[in-house]
């Protein structure tokens, strides 16, 4: 008799945005795995058309409240490179600093509030706080440090108002930045403790085999700029992205899936960044990684929590370094005159590569836009991982399997808000 099991989660919790998951098992074999995004579509590419290029950072920020700085940065990168704007070093430092703020905030959120409860058997951080208030307080303090940095450089944590094509509206003073040194030093300590704490979790042995894609930039751990590189040896400028990657629209989902142009599944995000750019980490971050038992590469989605921890250490370290070398610019922004043509930009959102492309006319009106967020690039990789995880654990009861599937998904910190342009776990056993 054919046995059919369906395991589903109608609303994935502790991911940003709304999605569901379905897994169908037939006679103990995985028949079908599906990550569904039913976040209603918001049509950003379409509503950007006809807007001024100067509005792109403000409008695209609204795609995602979790990583608005990533959207703003990829947008300004694309438009500035098209218009030939030379960004002065202090302005670039401020951008990277702002981005460090977002990494700290977003990683602290994911590690403490979304991911760690899975390892510790809690429904969420609020529940965890009842038993381990100090730990949650540490996570919140870290998160706050990131937020405060964003609030100073960007004006506010969510949808910063200070970012513009060409730079900023107002450059913070060295004195304002210095006030963040002490909190960042404390945050760096907390980040180190985070890595040690998470290193004590139990990790199932897992490796993903797909191609890893991330930005790389000589001399630094790429965040706000870089060339697109992959573990398979790709090394291209953001302008060449479309030649090597394509987006597909899949029924059942309002998100688009990305593949390499030859149809390959790839993964971006912390694992990719760590594996490709390990050597560029700061000595303290490298030390933390080593202590946590991480080698020079990491392909284990469960251990992504350690990698995020290491990146937390790095982001604090880097923010301190940037504050130290910052000198107030003569002007917070350079004048950017629109140039007709197509501009390409990429940056490393906390969840991975975020690619923007704009075509504008000589007046600066956006003629069309394309935005590829990390979650749509990772969706196929997540599904592949899910399939593999399920096939290895078909002996589990539905509840256990469902929890494992959800955790597998959360390992990737999928951001559904971003992907709309993701998910309920349904496991169907036939």
């Amino acid at each position, binding site marked *: 008799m054919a046995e059919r099991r369906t395991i589903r989660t109608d609303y994935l919790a502790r*991911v940003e945005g709304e999605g569901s998951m379905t897994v169908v098992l037939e006679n103990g074999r995985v028949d079908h795995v599906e990550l569904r995004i039913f976040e209603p579509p918001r049509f950003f590419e379409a509503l950007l*058309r006809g807007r001024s290029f100067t*509005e792109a950072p403000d409008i695209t920020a609204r795609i995602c*409240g979790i990583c608005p700085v990533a959207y703003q940065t990829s947008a300004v990168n694309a438009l500035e490179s098209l218009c030939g704007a030379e960004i002065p070093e202090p302005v670039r430092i401020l951008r990277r600093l702002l981005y460090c703020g977002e990494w700290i905030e977003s990683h602290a959120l994911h590690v403490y509030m979304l991911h760690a409860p899975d390892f510790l058997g809690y429904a969420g*951080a609020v529940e965890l706080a009842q038993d381990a208030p100090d730990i949650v307080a540490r996570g919140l303090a870290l998160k706050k440090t990131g937020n405060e940095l964003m609030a100073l450089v960007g004006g*506010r944590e*969510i949808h910063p108002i*200070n970012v513009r094509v060409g730079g900023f509206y107002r450059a913070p003073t060295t004195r304002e930045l210095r006030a963040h040194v002490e909190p960042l030093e404390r945050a760096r300590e907390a980040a180190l403790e985070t890595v040690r704490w998470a290193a004590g979790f139990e990790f199932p042995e897992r490796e993903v085999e797909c191609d890893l894609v991330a930005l790389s930039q000589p001399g630094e751990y790429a965040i706000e700029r870089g060339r697109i590189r992959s573990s398979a040896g790709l090394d291209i400028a953001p302008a060449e992205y479309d030649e090597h990657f394509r*987006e*597909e629209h899949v029924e059942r989902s309002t998100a688009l899936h990305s593949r390499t142009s030859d149809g390959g599944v790839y993964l971006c995000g912390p694992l990719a960044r760590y594996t490709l750019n390990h050597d560029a980490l700061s000595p303290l971050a490298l030390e933390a990684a080593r202590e946590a038992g991480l080698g020079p590469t990491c392909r284990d989605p469960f251990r992504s929590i350690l990698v995020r921890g290491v990146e937390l250490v790095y982001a604090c370290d880097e923010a301190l370094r940037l504050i130290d070398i910052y000198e107030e610019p003569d002007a917070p922004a350079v004048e950017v005159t629109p140039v007709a043509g197509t501009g390409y930009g990429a940056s490393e959102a906390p969840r991975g590569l975020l690619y923007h492309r704009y075509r504008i006319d000589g007046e600066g009106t956006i003629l069309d836009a394309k935005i590829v967020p990390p979650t749509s690039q990772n969706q196929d990789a997540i599904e592949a991982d899910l399939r593999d995880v399920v096939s290895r654990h078909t002996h589990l009861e539905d509840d256990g399997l469902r929890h494992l599937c959800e955790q597998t998904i959360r390992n990737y910190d999928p951001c559904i808000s971003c992907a709309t342009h993701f998910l309920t776990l349904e496991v169907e056993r036939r």
Partner: protein
Amino acid sequence: MSPKPKLAVWKFASCDGCQLSLLDLEDDLLAIAGAVEVAEFREATSGVVEGPYDLSLVEGSITTEHDAERIRQVRAASKVLVTIGACATAGGVQALRNFADVDEFVSAVYASPEYISTLGTSTPIAAHVPVDFELHGCPINKHQLREVVVSFLHGRRPAIASTSVCTECKRRGLVCITVAHGTPCLGPVTHAGCGALCPAYNRGCFGCFGPMETPNTAALVPLLRSQGLTERGVERVFATFNAAAEPFREAATGG
């Protein structure tokens, strides 16, 4: 002891930023979580508690039939329903579709548009169900969110002004950038709440908190024009994050 009030957080079409504001209240989060039973807050917990809910915070706008039905259920299960953010109070940036051809929008984003079912409009929650309080902003101000939550838990009116951004700008002692630099600023017609953030960063307000209580956009537009905004520029600045809020819609469409 009476049971703790149940707090629920709901999401419709949005960027998640407004509900993230609750988690961004790092200093108060655990106190709030201690004072209420978090009955539904998917971004933060997989725990779910049945309704009815004492306080529902609703983020996002209504863009699908399914969501139009879901908000009615949320309303029915909620004693107090508060909408948070520009999406929920004014349709959000996605309401720009209200002024365009949606089919064309869909085909611009999705290669196989036939898979997408969506309403032609993005509408605020209040267009579908009665709302007890609207908290403005794109995104909302987290301190105001705290005030709303604490106020409703204590049955009081939140101390949230609906005056202009200028009132906050002056309370902060900022120099008016419209008067002193000639920078176009929507502050005089925009709802207070951000604390006059943009003027503090030497930038004109672009209206992300939506219209203030008595917005005289007709009197402001000529000033914006004289400061160098083109007709199209005026149209754009009013038609961004609160495009579907009536006074801004009027100003954007010139009447």
